[in-house]
């Protein structure tokens, strides 16, 4: 019987510092054993562990189309993430996954997609975006709204520059308050979502801090997006990742197995989801 509690080992291949305040780092992991290699889809997560220090869940930031690496972006905020930030290249870490469900990329085929993200929660949205760009012909118009508190706190800055150059992708970047030298949008994500004209026949994926999700979803309804075409990814404290340990439930749903991806239609039926 497969023991899902036992992590397999991966090696830290590359580390990127994402923000000048040193709170955000991205880790590219490579497989040590070929048989550990797993298939996944954008939106799924893994439990990332450092033996002796503990385990934390993170959304997979790489796309399934990126061969041989698994990418995570980690905000330094607690004891495990602190230890993760101390990692050096070539260090060994433990991974369990892929866990949870995914954004419905099959349903998106041939359709327009809007991606709305906030802060360092852009991880699984990066996975989704790269996945769609790598299979560009399968999808219609792609629009991205990405907000951060200030210009320093965007993750994947180098890639954003590349995305800005593309003509098959509309990118709206916004920061909370005006900053000298910033020539893009200013304002919170819900406000910007209302201002840039979105086509409500598209599919929409929202991921960000809980407060951003809470205020962005009603705006989408206002614009005319039907609930079943809006998807979001929820965050809860997940320990086991397989629906046993009991702490990530919202109503009768467990974020680790029934989610983390839920449609707005589902969310409205679950008390306490937002």
């Amino acid at each position, binding site marked *: 019987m*497969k023991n899902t509690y036992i*992590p397999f080992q991966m090696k830290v291949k590359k580390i990127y510092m994402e923000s000048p305040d040193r709170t955000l780092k991205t880790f590219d992991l490579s497989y040590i054993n070929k048989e550990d290699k797993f298939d996944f889809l954008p939106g799924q997560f893994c439990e990332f562990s450092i033996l002796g220090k503990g385990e934390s869940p993170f959304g997979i930031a790489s796309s399934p189309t990126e061969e041989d690496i698994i990418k995570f972006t980690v905000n330094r905020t607690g004891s495990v993430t602190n230890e993760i930030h101390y990692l050096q290249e070539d260090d060994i870490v433990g991974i369990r996954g892929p866990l949870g469900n995914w954004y419905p990329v099959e349903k998106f085929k041939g359709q327009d997609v809007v991606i709305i993200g906030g802060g360092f929660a852009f991880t699984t949205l990066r996975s989704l975006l790269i996945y769609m760009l790598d299979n560009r012909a399968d999808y219609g118009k792609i629009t991205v709204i990405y907000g951060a508190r200030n210009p320093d706190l965007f993750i994947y800055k180098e890639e954003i520059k590349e995305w800005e150059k593309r003509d098959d992708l509309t990118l709206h970047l916004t920061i909370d308050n005006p900053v000298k030298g910033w020539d893009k949008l200013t304002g919170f994500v819900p406000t910007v979502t209302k201002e840039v004209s979105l086509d409500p026949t598209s599919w929409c994926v929202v991921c960000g801090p809980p407060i951003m999700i809470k205020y962005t979803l009603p705006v989408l309804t206002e614009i005319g997006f039907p609930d079943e075409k809006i998807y979001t990814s929820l965050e809860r404290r997940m320990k086991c990742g397989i*629906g046993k340990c009991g*702490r990530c439930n919202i109503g009768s749903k467990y974020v680790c197995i029934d989610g983390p991806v839920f449609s707005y239609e589902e969310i409205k039926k679950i008390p306490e989801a937002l």
Partner: protein
Amino acid sequence: MIKVKKSEFNKFIENLQENYSVFAPVTDGKATAFKKIKSADDINNKVLNTKRSPKEIFFPQSEVLFQYTKEGMEVPKRDEKPFAIWGMRNCDTKSLLMLDKVFGEAHQMPKKDMYKDPYWKEKYDNCLVFNLACNEPLSTCFCNWFDGGPFDKTGSDIFVVETDENYIFEAVSDKGKKFLSDFKTAENASDKEIKKIEKLKETAESYLAEKEDISSLFFKTKEIWDEPIWDEIAAKCVNCGACAFVCPTCHCFDVSDEGKGNKGKRIRLWDSCMFAIFTKEASGHNPRSQSTQRVRQRVMHKYNYFMDNYDEHLCTGCGRCVVVCPVNLDIREVIKKIINY
């Protein structure tokens, strides 16, 4: 049905020990709990509800998931004999079926190996459960609310009734039938003794308080989710979590690492939704920061969410939480309050 004379009981247990690790109620000081016995003399058949439930045989309060060294990870090896549990009551045998739903699969998920809990399954799948009938239920027992009863056999392999001189055995599951058919030295119970069981059953049932009709509980809990009744219910609760620790069906756990340098272990420990840090995320975000939200979570999980996923209430009416609650928050009163709201 076969019988074992009380004078032969010790011998019966000794025989059982040859092929099984035997667990039974053992009184240590003032508290009784299910423990692995050394000899039949350790067993206390008089205590009805052990203070802590026998779930800890299969799902211990602290359990090593794996040990690690520089070389790799290893799952600790377990006692190779299967478990036999003597003296479980109906409220506890039923709880094992519920826990098996949680640990043996995942609700509405495809039946994949990844959702099976190997630590639970290796202990539970081969165990032999002896369910001892309750001749004198306690005032805190309310198993009849959940269609259980002092002589109900659900969840057991072998059902046992204690009479004046004998233990009368009845096979319930296939595993139980096999065990009894291999049990050569046993005598058959006489018709007179079998009739006596009916009498004992009637007496036992008369001890229980009147059955409450809880058919509306599932819908009612959903209906009142947003009502101020939860503040009333939670007002007394001190969030100590004692109810969850003695509960035979509560199964939430925490995972934690203990170690130094390259050596250590990952363990899982009982946890409870009553604690504020249970849901607290590293960012500081806490979906259930208020006591009311946590009390509601526990009640809802028992009488609504579990029903949603597994078609039954996550409660067997054992009454342990009623006994241990330091502020006398009686779950039976809570249920009545909800139904009549």
